[in-house]
Every structure is written in C-alpha cells, then in structure tokens.
C-alpha cells in the first residue's frame, strides 16, 4: 500500500511538471516534419544548430498523410502550435494564398549582404523555387527535391541482350518487362506502385496520365476522365502490372517496391529519384548493378514528376526570426556539407542546390546524380500535359481539393488493379468525383 502511494505521488508530480517546464526556456522552436530519412537526419544534426545559435528545437515526426492532416488542422483551425512546418510543392501555393504561412521575402531582406551571398538563393533549382512561390514571393525553402526515373538492372539487361535508351517510351518498357518477367523464380519484369493514395499509386499513375496525353480537367475545368486517352492510361497500367508486374500490387507502395528492387526481385522499377540512394546503400543486394533512365514517355515527353519537401514558417508563429534562422541553416550549403562529411555524401539531401551536383565528392558517391538533375530540370511543372490545362503540377493538380480527389481516384485505381471493379465503373466514378470537385470548388466554367 505504501509503495502504491509513493508511486502515485511520483506520477502526480510528473503530471504537474508541465507547469514548471514553461519557465526559463530561452527560445524554443516547434517543428513538424515527415519521417523520411533526410528529415530524420536533420533532426539528429539539429543539435549542431542548437550548439551554434542556442535555440532549442522540438520535433514531431510523422508519416506523410498523418503529418499533412495534423499541420493542416493546425493552421486552418487556428491552433498555431508549430513554428516550422514541412510541406510539399503541392501545399505551398494554396497555403500561401490562404495566408497560413508567411512570405519569406521580408526575412531575406533582413539578411546581411555577406550572409545572402553565402546562402546564394540563385543556387537553387528554379523549377522547384517557382513551385514554392506565389506572385513572385517565395514562401518555403526546399529541403530536398525529387523527380521520377526508371531504375533497371544493367546485369539482367546485358544477360538478355537489351539496351535501355536514355529516354524510353512506355511501350519499350513494357516489351523489356516481358523479357525479364520470371515469376517462377520470383523475379518480376517491373514493379510499380499500386498502394492507394494520392501520394502513393497516384504519383506514379499521375505521370502516366500525362504521358498518354490525358488530363484531369480541360481549360474550362470540365473533368476529362471520360476520354479515350484516360482509358488508355488506366488499361495500360493494369496490363503492365498484371502481366509483367508484382503480385498484390495494391499492397505495394514506395517502401515495398524499394524492398523488391533492392532485394533483387525485379528487373525494373519506375519511382522517385531518391530511391537511387537506397539502391546504392549498404543494405542493397543490387548495389552497383543498377542503371538509370528518364521517366518513360508516350504521347508526351518529359513526364518526370516534381516534388520537394520544403520548410515554411507558420503565420501564427511567435518566433519567426528564430524559425527563419533555422530554415536557412537547414537548407544552406554548409548543412549539405555537414551531412556529406558526417554521414557520407550519398546521404546529402538531393534535388535542391545546383552546387550539390557540381560537388565532386557528391558526384563520386552518387552515380545517379546527373540523371536526377536532368529529371528535375526538365520537369514540366507549369505545363504538365499534352493539351493545355488550367492547373499546374505534374503528378497532382495544384488545388486544395486534390487531396480528396486524388485519394478517391487512387482507391478507384486500386479497385481496378485488384479486379474488384471494371474499367467503365471506375471511369464513371472518377468522372463524377472530379465533376463534383470542379463545381463545388467554384472552378467550373460553362
């Protein structure tokens, strides 16, 4: 009984400590970020920042969907619990328009001439920066960027006498996969994401939609699912996955696909450029056997996607200057150098600064560097489709409602891939959902 009482008192005391912990903290920043390895690295290395500048940092790390829900809730419902939020190229434009994050221009102006020169804003890749700006003002700084490309096993290609062109077409990929497909030995021709989600299967399929000449909406925001091009895209995806792809595609997201590729169970993989680092990592059984090609085209070329996880400052933050110090620290050349020197250049955050790609140590450690840079420079963010469209964004439509719409279409695609639904009912369901988004959102023009 006595022990119980002591325990009780201890717990109550702990419960009251928040009252005491508010006292005497200098400046403290709350940061919400994604659980990607580059961010986790940032979390670890942030101790250096605290040592240098003396500002303490608290992190919350969550998977992409949970993070987006949480930070959107935080800004939209006015809670303001975070100083720095990690958002993507998708979120930035309308977060800026809604005034949920602050423009960074005034903070850049406060930097001294030497600081600004050292930081060098021109070093950043311009497609990425324009995706993070609104009306010429930058609202977020890219922490890491990616596009999409094809990974293939050069040893298997040699064995079968195949040659991969630098810019393959989807039809070529399909033919290659047929040769490589060997399910009896648990080896698949190609692996493609099927896991439902606008950031999962829809990222990959989104580029295929563009490649096949289809689009989400036409210039008057009328949905374009009920078209031959869109049907072609859906059918092609299903055919390639069921005939020469992995089993159970709807359980395969980025992580599972990476696992399949790095354990040598597939001949090709089309996915995010960041995967290259993992495939050359210590865990990978295919290290040194992987070569790269640009995202496949069909009717349209330059189909690689564009994405950058970026750091932005919440409008409700009370520590904006301190927050700005951190986000410039984390995106500076020095930070990239820090990662390169402490953890290896292969782990350096990719897809943000041109100087990274000009660095010889990085080039030595990352054989995929050139193709990644090409993919990102070529990404058609402003004109993603064959026919003109009123929206921006390669693998998504840059409107806030896309989260819901993309999620729904991703589920429909998964239903189609798993054979639960037929093509027509999927097309009609997507068309209906898109029409509702267009009308309710006030985009639709007669």
């Amino acid at each position: 009984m006595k022990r119980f009482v002591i325990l009780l008192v201890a717990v109550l005391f702990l419960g009251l400590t928040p009252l005491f912990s508010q006292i005497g903290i200098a400046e403290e920043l709350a940061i919400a970020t994604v659980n990607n390895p580059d961010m986790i690295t940032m979390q670890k290395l942030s101790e250096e920042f605290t040592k240098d500048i003396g500002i303490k940092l608290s992190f919350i790390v969550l998977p992409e969907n949970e993070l987006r829900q949480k930070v959107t809730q935080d800004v939209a419902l006015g809670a303001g619990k975070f100083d720095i939020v990690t958002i993507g190229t998708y979120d930035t434009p309308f977060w800026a328009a809604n005034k949920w994050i602050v423009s960074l221009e005034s903070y850049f102006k406060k930097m001294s001439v030497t600081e600004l020169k050292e930081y060098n804003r021109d070093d950043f890749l311009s497609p990425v920066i324009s995706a993070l700006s609104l009306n010429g003002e930058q609202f977020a700084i890219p922490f890491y960027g990616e596009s999409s490309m094809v990974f293939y096993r050069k040893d298997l290609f040699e064995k079968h006498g195949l040659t991969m062109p630098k810019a393959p077409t989807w039809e070529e990929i399909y033919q290659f996969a047929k040769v490589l497909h060997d399910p009896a030995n648990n080896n698949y021709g190609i692996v493609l994401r099927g896991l439902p989600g606008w950031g999962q299967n829809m990222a990959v399929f989104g580029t295929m939609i563009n490649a096949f000449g289809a689009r989400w909406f036409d210039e008057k925001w009328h949905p374009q699912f009920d078209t031959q091009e869109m049907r072609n895209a859906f059918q092609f995806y299903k055919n390639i996955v069921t005939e020469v792809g992995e089993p159970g595609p709807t359980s395969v997201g980025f992580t599972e696909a990476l696992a399949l590729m790095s354990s040598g169970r597939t001949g090709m993989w089309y996915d995010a450029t960041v995967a290259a680092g993992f495939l050359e990592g210590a865990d990978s059984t295919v290290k040194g056997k992987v070569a790269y090609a640009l995202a496949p085209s069909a009717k349209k070329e330059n189909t690689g996607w564009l994405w950058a996880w970026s750091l932005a400052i919440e409008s409700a933050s009370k520590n904006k200057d301190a927050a700005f110090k951190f986000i410039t620290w984390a995106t500076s050349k020095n930070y990239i150098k820090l990662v390169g020197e402490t953890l290896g250049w292969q782990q350096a955050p990719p897809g943000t600064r041109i100087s990274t790609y000009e660095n010889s140590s990085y080039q030595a450690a990352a054989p995929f560097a050139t193709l990644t840079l090409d993919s990102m420079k070529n990404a058609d963010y402003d004109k993603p489709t064959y026919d003109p469209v009123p929206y921006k964004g390669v693998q998504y439509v840059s409107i806030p409602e896309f989260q819901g719409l993309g999620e729904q279409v991703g589920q429909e695609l998964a239903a189609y891939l798993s054979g639960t639904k037929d093509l027509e009912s999927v097309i009609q369901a997507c068309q209906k959902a898109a029409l509702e988004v267009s009308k309710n959102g006030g985009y639709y023009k007669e």
Partner: protein
Amino acid sequence: MRGAIITMKSKSNSLLTLPAIVSVAVVTQVLFLATIFLSFIKWIVIRPDLGKSFAGIKNYVWIFKAPETYQIIGNTILITALSLTLCLILGFCFSLLLNRRFPLRKLCRMFVLIPFFMTPAVIGIIWKTLLLHPSFGITGYISQIYNSAPIDFFGQHAFISIIILIVWQWTPFFVLIILAGLQGVNPEMIESAQIDGASSIRILFQIKIPALRYHIQVATMLGMIFILKVFGLIYVTTRGGPGFTTTNLPYQVFKISYYKWDIGQAASYATLMVAMSLIIIMVMFNFIQKQIKRLEI
C-alpha cells in the same frame, strides 16, 4: 429494493452521481451536439475563401443521394454482424476448451487474451506487412514455396481480411465474459445430468447455454457497440479500399474530415452513424430480451 435497505437523503444522493454525469455528458453529449450543429453548416477547411455558411439540410441531402453512402451503411452493418457472429462462436469454443482443467491452462488463457490488449494500429500492421503481404509476408512466402499465385488479402479479399482482424482482436473479449459465465455454472447440475446419462452435447445445449444467457447478452451488446466503431484497423490496412469495399461509417467520417476537409458533410455522416447505432442497439436489445424470455418459459 436495495435502496430501501440503506436509506439516504436524496440531496447527498445525487451529489454522488453528479461528477460522473457532468464529465461524461460534457465530453460526449456536448461534443455530439456540436457535431450535429456542424452538420448544418457548409465549411470547407481548406478553402477559407469560401467561408462558412448555413447549409440547412443540404449536407444530409448530399449524403443520401450519394450511392456510396448505401454501400458504406451496408458495410458497417455487415462487418459488425459477421464479426459478432464469428466472435461469439469462436469465443464459445475457446471458453469451452479453457474451462477444463489441464496443464498449462493459465498460459493458454493468456495466449488467447493477448490480442485484446494490443493497439489496433499494431494489429493491422502486423497482419498486413508481416503475415499476409503477398510479397514479404508469411503467406506470400508459403505460396512461393508451393509455386502458386500469392493471395492478395488486402487487395482482392479486403472485406474478409478486415473481418479476420476484427475477430482476432475481439474474440478475447467474448472469451473473458463467456468463460466467466461458464465458471459460474453450478457443477452439481452438470454432475447430476451426467449421472442421468445425458451426453456432453445435451449438457451443453440444455444446461450451459441457458445458464449463460445474460453473459451472451452483455457480450453481444457491448461487442456490437465497440465493433460498430472500428476505425484503427481499417485506417492502417486498407484505408477503406479498394474503392469503398471496406469503408464503414467511422472511416468515412474520418476521410471526409481529413481528406475532403468538408466539416459539414463529415458531421452529417457522424450524426447518421450515431442515429443508426442507437436504432440497431435498441432493436438488438429487444430481440435478445425476447429470446431470453422464451428460454425462461
């Protein structure tokens, strides 16, 4: 009757229940009233430029016009009914097995009860990634050995897979209650029936089951209340898909809240869910009461 034994002043009486009623009421009823209120509003969080406005019954009209609503309602009822039935049967079997005396009985009981104490998120992830994954899981591996096509559990058989998970998690709850009931059955009755030459099966149906009728009632009612609300398992495994195959009302409320960000619509689904649950609970309760009365005659 007990009240007559211990007389108490009614003033101090109500003070006893007041704190409980107030806290529970504030958290559940007030929040629910807020939800009902929100269901009459049009508020799309990610479009602050569209503002908030009064929507009347438009949200309800929308959800009743949407064909997926009916599939979702059907899913909710079907998932609950199937899981409940399976839990009852399995729970019964395990209880009968565990009611005997045999070595390592306590260990076996512990094994059976463990799933109940696990977080639904953990359960979902374990089953989806470690066990049933067609490429990396144990079932995938087994089909590779036998050279057959791996079964895509959460893709093609999503509905059944969810039910398997629910049954795995909730059967222990039923075991707890039914086992308790079995252990309260008068052993003398069983002995005298055995002496009279009754077979085990007759004993089961004519002595044990009737003795357990209250236990079965409570287990079913409470189990139903909890299974209607299942959300975590679906969230972690299928996200309601493929399509709407495994979407139930709680998941739909979540999806509309956090993907579509249409607060009014989500609130209408939530209100629909609570109304429907209330009706189901009352119907079930009356049904069970009638069954019990029949057994008593």
